[in-house]
């Protein structure tokens, strides 16, 4: 069962951190956007995707909520963790069955293809491993764009400070929790 295999791989570590280079390509394979930053996770509930260049952006989990802070417009959007479409990355740190029940998993040519049962902007999430470490995370978007995070310097540990991010007091709050 591909889902069980993938969960076993993800269960092999409780903490993980790495640098990433993000590249978005359109249907013709043309690069439309790129960035870099750091990604970290700590089970059961901590996750951080901190884009540093060219423009800072911060996506992290705290408790039952997902926070997306955009310094460029000084706004934080808050989603509930159950709003998985807000961030499929949650799957990487949350192994609970009720979360994974919303996804189908297929293993093809060394890539795990995770497809949400409820279609949204994201068609599927693709994970590939180098040995037992996550190597690439790709999001295939409904419009044909592919958003790929290529990881490097992966470590089976995460500095606790990586998960701390102080949102400015004057940030606009966009509360998307239902």
């Amino acid at each position: 069962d591909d889902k069980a295999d993938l969960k076993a791989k993800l269960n092999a570590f409780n903490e993980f951190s790495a640098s990433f280079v993000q590249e978005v390509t359109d249907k013709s394979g043309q690069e439309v956007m790129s960035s870099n930053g750091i990604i970290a996770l700590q089970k059961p509930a901590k996750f951080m995707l901190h884009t540093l260049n060219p423009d800072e952006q911060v996506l992290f989990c705290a408790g039952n909520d997902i926070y997306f802070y955009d310094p460029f417009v000084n706004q934080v959007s808050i989603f509930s963790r159950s709003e998985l479409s807000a961030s499929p990355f949650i799957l990487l740190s949350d192994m609970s069955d009720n979360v994974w029940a919303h996804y189908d998993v297929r293993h093809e040519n060394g890539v795990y293809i995770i497809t949400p049962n409820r279609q949204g902007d994201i068609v599927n999430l693709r994970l590939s491993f180098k040995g037992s470490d996550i190597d690439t995370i790709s999001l295939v978007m409904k419009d044909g764009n592919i958003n790929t995070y290529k990881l490097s310097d992966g470590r089976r540990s995460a500095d606790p400070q990586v998960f701390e991010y102080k949102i400015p007091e004057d940030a606009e709050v966009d509360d998307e929790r239902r």
Partner: protein
Amino acid sequence: CQSPIEQKEISFASDNYWTLMQDKLKTVKNLNLKGRIGIQNPQGRMSANYIYNLKNDAYTLELISSLGSQIGKLTADKNEAKLIINGKVYTSNDGESLIKEIYGLSLPVNDLKDIMLGIPQGMALKDSSGKYQSAVIAGFLVEYQKFADFNNYALPTDYQISNEDTLLKVRLNEVLTIN
């Protein structure tokens, strides 16, 4: 894939540097710029990555979300403008009226080339060195904060475009083509 032109500080500007530069910028026919745009109005705030492509009189402005999905793609030339959103196609005479029709936003889209090149036409204010500080275009105030050199073209890298209820913040991150 094309690598971006190196961005350098404008270290020394001779007396007529900006006048000569503005004349040079008026001759630009091809542009490929990438950056970030933030929009703030009574409906809320959002930001996106933009790609601006100019070939003579035709331009394309594409907005991409942080997750990588296309928010919208505007293509226009002297005769027509076309906007693609989620696969649906909308057309009008020009980009400005199309954005107004679809989003209810009036933005100085038809003047975007001049704004992005830092040579705004219309009522403008220059500093003592001749560099544009601000300009009023189509009812919008354009304020330039920073410029940088890209292969001997001085372009604004940080500026904002605002009127009484809308604030657009624009940052230029990459110049892939300018000639």
